[in-house]
């Protein structure tokens, strides 16, 4: 039997192996600090844990950054598309607003005058630039006849050159074949306005002694009852007088820019409308008295201001 045949070393090792955990438990319960034995192990494990934590947080950060970039790019594309749609809508709304303002001015002008007017729209221009004509969407079917005046709230545009059933061709005052009877508003000097180019007209047949200065307003004379009397035609920009000539060379800037025409009025009946202030009204003792002509001129002035802004 070898039961009692044991070595002392084995006994001591066995006993220590059994007792050491109990001793450590006892030490852990009684001491608040980490036991000295464990401190190197806890320190090393702590270092390893910190390193791993830093590494994993870095990897997590980079991965989430990439994933966020993908989302950001997608959101950016969507927002840019939405922005473009909204901009287009805004442009449309702005255009509608401007058109509404223009049409309101036209309506106000039409209601404040006794002329019989027919509204129309410009649908085309002359194919050859040396001829200044436009095509409008009103014709004989709407009561338009050849020779009728065409104007806007800003001033005279021209007159009907050729009237077809649904369209008409209008010769502008800037065409070299046009002729509009006009007079200088300040001095009542009369002449004929014809065109030179799209930006200038000529005021012909002014007598040598007629008083015309740069800046004078030229208006329609209204003698033919085609154009209303006193309607703006243009402004004098150049006055030349030759040494031996009997007439003056006067150039005008037209009141209406023919390149920006959209809506126009055709004068079916001028009804002897007079936009020219008479001498009695200008010398009136009651300057605050507002006559029909003043109201119309005020509407014209407001409309001209906004039309100039549109240009």
């Amino acid at each position: 039997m070898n039961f009692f045949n044991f070595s002392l070393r084995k006994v001591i090792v066995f006993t220590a192996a059994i007792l050491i955990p109990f001793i450590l438990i006892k030490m852990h319960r009684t001491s608040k600090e980490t036991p000295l034995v464990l401190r190197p192990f806890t320190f090393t494990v702590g270092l390893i844990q910190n390193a791993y934590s830093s590494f994993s947080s870095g990897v997590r950060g980079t991965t989430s950054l990439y994933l966020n970039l993908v989302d950001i790019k997608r959101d950016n594309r969507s927002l840019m598309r939405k922005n473009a749609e909204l901009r287009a809508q805004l442009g449309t709304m702005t255009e509608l607003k401007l058109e509404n303002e223009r049409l309101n001015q036209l309506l106000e002008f039409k209601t404040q005058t006794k002329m019989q007017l027919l509204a129309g729209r410009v649908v085309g221009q002359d194919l050859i630039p040396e001829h200044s004509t436009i095509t409008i969407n009103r014709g004989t079917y709407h009561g338009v006849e050849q020779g009728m005046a065409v104007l806007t709230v800003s001033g005279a545009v021209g007159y009907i050159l050729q009237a077809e059933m649904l369209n008409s061709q209008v010769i502008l005052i800037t065409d070299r074949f046009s002729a509009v009877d006009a007079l200088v508003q300040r001095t009542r000097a009369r002449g004929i306005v014809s065109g030179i180019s799209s930006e200038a007209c000529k005021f012909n047949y002014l007598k040598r002694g007629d008083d015309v200065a740069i800046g004078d307003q030229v208006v329609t004379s209204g003698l033919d009852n085609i154009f209303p009397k006193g309607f703006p035609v243009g402004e004098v920009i150049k006055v030349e007088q030759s040494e031996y000539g009997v007439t003056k060379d006067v150039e005008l800037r037209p009141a209406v820019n023919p390149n920006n025409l959209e809506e126009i009025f055709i004068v079916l009946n001028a009804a002897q409308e007079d936009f020219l202030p008479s001498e009695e009204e200008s010398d009136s003792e009651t300057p605050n008295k507002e006559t029909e002509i003043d109201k119309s001129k005020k509407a014209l002035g407001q409309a001209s201001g906004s039309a100039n802004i549109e240009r």
Partner: protein
Amino acid sequence: MTYLITLLVASVTAMPLGMFLLLNIILYALSYTFKSKFYQPGPIFFAIICGAMSVAFMPIHFILSLIIEPTPIQDLEIIFWLLQSLLTPLLSFAVYPIFCIIDDLTNKELPTEVGRQFE
């Protein structure tokens, strides 16, 4: 064809019909003379002819206006003329196939050499 084009275009311009017809006939004569001397089949020659005629249009119109009209042209639209001269040859490439189709429909054979069409 010249008369037909004149009638079509005259409806959108205020140029007198007679003067416009005369202008187009002069342009046709010029293009025919040019073609009889330097013809090459293909769209490039067609573009050259179109460009040359668009360049010639304004001077001929100006000269005719000086001779015929009581109030001749005073202000030349140079910029429009230059633009027209540049854009017409470019657009002619788009129009060339249409004229080829018309030639096919009318069974008109294109001359292959200069002078062959007179044989």
